[in-house]
Every structure is written in C-alpha cells, then in structure tokens.
C-alpha cells in the first residue's frame, strides 16, 4: 500500500515539497511536475532534501517539464527517475492513490 505524491511548485517558491516530504510515508513515490521539476536539479539548496528523500522514496520528475525549462538530463540528481505523461499514468496506476501537494 503506497501512494504517489505530486509536487507542482518550485521548492524556492512554495513549501509544498517540504510539506510533502514531512508526510509522505516511507516507500511512497514522489513525482515532481511543472515548476516542481526544479527540485530535481543538481546544485540547488534543495538538492540535499531530494537526496535524503531518495533513501525512503522513489523520486521521479517529468522529463517534458525539465526540457521545457532548459534543464537537461545531465543536470538531474542521480537516482531521480525521468518519466513522460505515459509514465505519469503508469505511476498513478501502480500506486494506491495520489496526494497532490499544490
């Protein structure tokens, strides 16, 4: 029994990623979408949070959103899985429900 958490805002704009990480149960999956994908990029003050999260969760980021924002794959934190919209659908299906952290 595990959930998929979506985070759509940048970690430098809102605290949604922080709040998500406070409540997401171990083993759950976190998907960064829209501006949330900036959290997946190396070299930011949020990087440590994502690295810590990877110890307890599967973390993914939307590849189309990263590309749109000029963030190439080599800039993504190692261990963060990249998915497209079809992959997003698969994640929803393979988890019990979705918690949206807006």
């Amino acid at each position: 029994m595990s959930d998929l958490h979506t985070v759509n805002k940048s970690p430098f704009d809102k605290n949604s990623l922080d709040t998500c990480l406070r409540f997401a149960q171990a083993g759950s999956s976190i998907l960064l979408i829209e501006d949330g994908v900036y959290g997946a990029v190396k070299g930011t003050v949020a990087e440590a949070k994502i690295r810590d999260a990877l110890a307890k969760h599967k973390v993914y980021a939307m590849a189309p959103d990263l590309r749109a924002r000029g963030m190439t794959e080599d800039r993504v934190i190692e261990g963060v899985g990249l998915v497209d919209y079809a992959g997003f659908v698969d994640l929803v299906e393979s988890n019990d429900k979705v918690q949206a952290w807006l």
Partner: protein
Amino acid sequence: MKLAIQINEGPYQHQASDTAYHFTKAALEKGHQVFRVFFYHDGVNNGTRLTTPPQDDRNVVNRWAELAEKYELDMVVCVAAAQRRGLVDEGEAKRNGKDATNIHPRFRISGLGQLVEAAIQSDRLMVFGD
C-alpha cells in the same frame, strides 16, 4: 483504471489545465477510462467558448473539447464557481437574468455533487492546480 480529474485553475494562467490535458490524453490512449473531468475554482474558465488565443500557441479550450468529442468525456463546470466567475449556459442565463451565454457546448454546468460522485465512482482522483 477509472479516473476522476479535477482542475482548479483556468487556461493559460497556470499550467494545471495543460498538465491535466496531457495526463488525461495519455491515460485514454492507454485504454484507461475517465469517469469525469471536473473544473473547479478558476478552472471553470476552461469552459468558455470565447477565447481567441494566439495562432502560434495551443488552444486550451478547443483541445479539451476535441479530446472530449473523441472519447465522449463528461466535462463538468461547477455551478457555484461558474456563477461567481460568469460562466453561463442557457439555463443559468434564464434563471439569473443574464443577457448572454459563454459556455462551450462540450462542457456542462452542474453541481459539486458531480465531483464527489466522481471521487466515489473512480479508482483514482487526480487534482491539478496551483
């Protein structure tokens, strides 16, 4: 799986409606069902037929309408949110003394119960917002 889609923001202002669209389309193409697409808060503004977006960019309203036509989607705009924001169909115009309608024919105005019902009847509720 059977999906309920909730969209909280209007076209263009936020990416919510775009992400919801691409997700919904991907789900349908994979053979999943969409029980209902429910537009709430400023999301009701996705239901106007009067947008004229620039030619070189996506047409958010028409894109939803085309998807709805292809897959027979039930696209519902919340009546209370619509009344606040001026999204009007024939029935609402008559009831509330408005001299115009602006809803796109592929959308229907209905109550919040439709969102609750969708959450009950579906396997997953997806919320796209700000």
